[in-house]
């Protein structure tokens, strides 16, 4: 991703996919595969929430991605309204409505190895989510947010480990959100052998870094990096509605 200082020329992974689609470049194809691989779990949740069985939801999701990539559905995306999240869901709904039936899905998805999807893990996640009052769309959006955050936290943990701060991250991780802010800093300081102020500063930096990584992650899925805030707000509102 490249973001200019003045915002005159900005690209995201998603816009790169859109722009390069016509040229059939390998990098565009890879970018798209990467995006799909990242965000298939929310679709699986959506299908499950729609009442599909585990097997049917798996087949449907696998089938959709095969179809999505082979039929170059992404070329139909409206660049001006470009949230990958919305586009993916709309495409999936269309796929369900117009093109999918169980037999053909099995046929298409059964032989495909385009994407490696960990359905078992997704299913175990699905079973522990509190879903009783949510619509499939909400489940999809929440899982999207959760997937984003999972990636962000993994990246942050990797960064910290590489920098030799693995233990620090393990101890301070729980202070990332407001509800634990300030409580237990003293114990953490003792455990890490640093001052309480150093804990406070480290937590502040971790929180900022989470924010930066999240924005980077989201900017891959929107057509304009300036829309990152809108996307975050939109996800926050979806979560508020619960």
């Amino acid at each position, binding site marked *: 991703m490249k973001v200019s200082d003045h915002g005159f020329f900005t690209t995201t992974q998603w816009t790169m996919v859109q722009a390069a689609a016509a040229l059939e470049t390998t990098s565009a194809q890879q970018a798209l595969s990467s995006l799909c691989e990242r965000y298939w779990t929310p679709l699986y949740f959506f299908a499950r929430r729609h009442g599909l069985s585990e097997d049917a939801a798996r087949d449907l999701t696998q089938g959709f991605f095969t179809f999505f990539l082979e039929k170059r559905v992404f070329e139909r995306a409206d660049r001006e309204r470009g949230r990958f999240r919305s586009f993916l869901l709309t495409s999936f709904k269309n796929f369900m409505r117009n093109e999918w039936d169980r037999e053909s899905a099995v046929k298409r998805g059964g032989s495909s190895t385009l994407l490696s999807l960990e359905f078992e893990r997704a299913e175990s*996640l699905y079973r522990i989510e509190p879903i009783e009052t949510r619509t499939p769309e909400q489940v999809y959006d929440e899982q999207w947010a959760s997937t984003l955050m999972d990636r962000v936290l993994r990246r942050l943990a990797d960064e910290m480990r590489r920098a030799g701060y693995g233990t620090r991250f393990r101890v301070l991780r729980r202070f990332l*959100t407001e509800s634990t802010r300030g409580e237990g800093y003293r114990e953490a300081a003792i455990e890490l052998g640093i001052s309480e102020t150093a804990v406070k500063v480290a937590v502040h930096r971790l929180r900022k870094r989470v924010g930066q990584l*999240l924005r980077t992650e989201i900017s891959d899925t929107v057509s304009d990096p300036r829309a990152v805030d809108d996307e975050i*707000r939109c996800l926050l509102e979806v*979560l508020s*509605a619960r």
Partner: protein
Amino acid sequence: MNRPQTCKTCGYQTSDSVTEGLCLRCLLSLGLEEPDQEDLVGSLVDHYRIIGTLGMGGMGVVYRAEDVRLNRVVAIKFLTERSLTDQLAQKRFEREARAASQLNHPNICTIHDVGNFEGQPYLVMECIEGSSLRARIREGSLSSQEILKLSVQLLDALEAAHEAGLLHRDIKPSNIFVTSRGDAKILDFGLARPVSAGREEDVETWSDATSGRGVIGTLPYMAPEQFDGSGEDARTDLFSLGCVFYEMATGKAAFVRDTPAATLKSVLDETPEPVGELNPAMPQAFNQVTARMLQKRAERRYESAAEARKDLELQAAYYRQASAMSSWRGRILMLFLVLCVLFLGIHTLNTYFEQREIESVAVLPFESLAGDSAKEYLALSMTDSLIQGLSPIGGLRVASWSSSDLFRDSGAEPVEIGRSMEVDAVIWGSVEQRGDEITVRAALVDVRTGKELSAREGTSSSKEFGNLQNGFILAFAGVLRGSLSSAEADRLVRRTPEDPEAFEVYSRALYLLRKRERTDLAVDYLKQTLELAPGNALANAYLSHAYLMQVAYENHRPRDVMPLARSAAQTALNENPNLPEALLALAMVKLSYDWDFAGAYELMSQSLESDPDLPTGLHWFGLYYAAMGDLETAHAMISRAKSLEPHSPVVITALGRISYYQRDYVEAMNQYRQVFLLEEGFAPGHLAAGLALLQLRQPEEALFQFRQGLQLGPEWSEIFDAFDSGISGRTERLNQALEQIRLESESKYLSPFYMAVLHTVLGRRDEAFEWLDKAIEDRSEYLVYLEVDPVFDPLRSDARFESALELIGLAD
């Protein structure tokens, strides 16, 4: 299987699968770039000083702030810069401002102001402590009694909104707050519209819904007519509120089903399982009221919130009485009440319950019509005696002297002032002296209705002025709480000195004591008072307070002064054994000088029993708990004192001290900053702030605060000099200052406790222990907080510290 957890900050229910216990919503919020958000804390936005962040949502950020003009804490909601491009967000924001600002009701979150700061619109709202109703329902912690109380309040609030011509249209548990006092507050009028609005608004609502932003979540609380296009009116909000009642009582939403379609069908066609079957503890009448509010056809519901409230209030009153009367006598009275209902009819009782009890009153500064500034103390003492006289009334919060004094000379209307102070009623009036005759005129007005409840005039000779004051206390107490028994009346009447000269010096002494200033002069005044009015219990109690303050704030040797404090308090108690001020003074002597913690507890409890709402009582009892290491209770006690006396620098400083003991130095500084806004140069606040800043590793700032605080008198100059040079590393100067202290210690007293603090801060462990020993020998005031005071953390691992705790009686 992981259990869902509810985030303490935003109420979001998250499972700990991916984020492992961290709130997904709060984590997402970290991604919102709000560079100004942190910067705003501490800065001045128009006349609001931002003192902290309360929360952040998709649309905006809410800060805790101090209104420096009115000296009150408020919440400020900013629409984020990026939301400005979001037309829907902006529209909701404007609508909320417009709608809620039309309303003034204790159960609706008050909008105080709207503004624009560097292009960002903001709303100024009352700052509410507590939690959302949604969270309370999820906790399952609401009792039947609380549910009834909240329900009546919510209906009352809706009634006010409807009378003002507004429909809320988004009533749901997450839009209702339960304050820490257990009262309901309706929030978020972002979807409100006039009762008479046409269908265009409905189209807009649907566009909100279809955009997936905001209304989706309210589907289970929407009334059938909102879907079939038959129009909305007050009964629509009543349906939503009925859903809330149902959820409060049963813990489950009335119409939520697995899918939106099923939920919609349920709203339109299904009757929820009766409340009584799910929660047999709820009274039948509540269940009937709820069932009627949940009728599918609007014409079968109550016509108005007022009608539903009246039905429900009867139940709430029944519960109040039932819990108060569990004895045989109570049961007989209860039977009588039930018979009243039967014989007098519901209508009569409805009229009675409409007159809701006044729970808070402010006594505004009386106006002096004497035209002679030397006589202003008469007006001051009239104000003062009413505040003190009414405060022991159970269930009545009397806004403090410091709060109402802020409005002196403001020129605002009394009712307006009362609303600003968030009280139910105000008392104000004038005092006029002609020759030896003093005339007092005073009125009591219900702020909520603007109705005058009582207006009185009385005249006496200057010698009888004390009695005249007592007459006003009893008269207003009677209006506020019905007739008083002679024992109750006796409890309310404070025996202030009757002799006018005695009264004048007494009033001056109290003024100084409240400011924590010139306690030596206050002692002189009180001694003069006692010469003119020998044996006066209040004067003796306050004399004891004055001595206590000399030790706490003015560096007097405890051994010289504490016996005097004890003696004065005991004299007061001989005169009036239940006088809370005297009980407290003796308790403080026992706590900080005798180290008789059990004795202190007993006296403080007695004082609290005698006057549960005396702010000093709560404040000092809080200090007792702090000394005992129970900082949570200490915080709760002093917070309660602050809620009663929100503008008292003394109480806020004490709250800051508790945060400091809790190692929450940032919060401590937030409190101290409030103090400085209220009273620049409040020395105890500056000293406390200096210590907090040392913990925050901000020595320069700490020194500045010490400098401010120690301008009190020359007795502090050497120790300050030592702090200054020690912290800034000027060893030679430090040694000179310490030598000077040693030389001067023979001629003037300097608390060894402060010397112990100084040496601890400078890392001079042995010297610190030497001074600590001397402090123990002298029984220095602050030693009882040794166990919790973070300044001594570097000494804790030393066996000598444990010995010190043992000597004071604080060791485990």
